[in-house]
């Protein structure tokens, strides 16, 4: 099966503007997009640049934009795309370093804002107990691989790049709703700002983008309710 890849190219150290380049490839329906990128890089265009490591959707390196949707290159097969022409771009809303590699400095700075760690003092000698039900509350949230696909897909973030974004919200949830955390307020405080949780307008792009099928909006709605409780 032959497929055409139209890839946005841009090297921030020398190009003024991005441009597109096309590659025709014979592929199997079960090939991953990442396999195709590898083949393009190895056989045709050595300078094509992208990140990847685990190749099975667990490290979060290779979030890219395929036909207008953010996904992981290693988690999408040719047969999932159902198109003969595959348009590949870097994930939007972040500065491009080279080709599909974007600068995630800001993304991780936003992650750090929410105090992404358990705040708890004086642990018991054995493990802290946590009921199965309490653990289930954070079950989805702990799956985040910090790939950035969600934050990059959020229209609210495109309009206001200062918006902390769904990934940071999810991290705040991860700790604020962990029964072992002793200072949920500290995590909540960080996102109760005009650049925080209130910039979410339940657009659900993040949910569509998340490769780990995390329903971010559900978690954000829990946060908003918690905030309201706090204020009243």
């Amino acid at each position: 099966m032959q497929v055409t890849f139209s890839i946005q190219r841009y090297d921030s150290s020398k190009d003024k503007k991005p441009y597109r380049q096309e590659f025709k490839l014979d592929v199997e329906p079960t090939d991953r997009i990442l396999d195709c990128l590898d083949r393009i890089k190895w056989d045709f265009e050595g300078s094509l640049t992208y990140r990847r490591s685990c190749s099975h959707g667990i490290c979060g390196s290779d979030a890219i934009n395929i036909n207008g949707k953010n996904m992981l290159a290693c988690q999408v097969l040719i047969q999932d795309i159902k198109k003969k022409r595959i348009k590949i771009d870097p994930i939007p809303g972040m500065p491009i370093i080279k080709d599909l590699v974007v600068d995630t400095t800001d993304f991780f700075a936003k992650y750090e804002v929410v105090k992404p760690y358990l705040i708890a003092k004086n642990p018991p000698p054995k493990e802290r107990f946590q009921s199965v039900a309490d653990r289930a509350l954070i079950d989805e949230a702990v799956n985040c691989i910090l790939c950035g696909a969600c934050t990059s897909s959020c229209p609210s973030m495109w309009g206001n790049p200062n918006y902390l974004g769904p990934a940071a919200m999810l991290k705040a949830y991860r700790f604020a709703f962990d029964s072992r955390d002793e200072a949920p307020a500290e995590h909540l405080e960080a996102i109760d700002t005009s650049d925080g949780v209130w910039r979410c307008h339940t657009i659900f792009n993040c949910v569509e983008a998340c490769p780990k099928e995390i329903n971010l909006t559900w978690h954000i709605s829990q946060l908003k309710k918690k905030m309201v409780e706090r204020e009243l």
Partner: protein
Amino acid sequence: MSYKHLGSRNSGAPGWLFQRITGIVLIVAMVGHYILMHYTPTSGHSFASTFERMQNPLWKVFYLSFVVVGIYHGLNGVWGVVRDFKMKRWLSMTILGAMIILGIAFAVFGFMNVLVF
């Protein structure tokens, strides 16, 4: 490390909650309003019927609150839209100020429409 763009710390919770509450109030008001206006076309579209209705203080209260709630909900909504753009603080504050003045002015104007009866 702290993030360079952290917004102001006042909580957005009340505004968010009121937007939902006023929205729900508006549903009730809207349904009433529409039945009144369109189900029987004359009831809203002639002075005589309007005048008659306005003699009832309950209708007055209904319309007064409709004006307030509607304007609040609309402008609070617009304010939300404004904050979706990164802009200088002075600019957003100017817009907020303008919106408040506009809102109060129109609320007063709307009140006059009702209280003239």
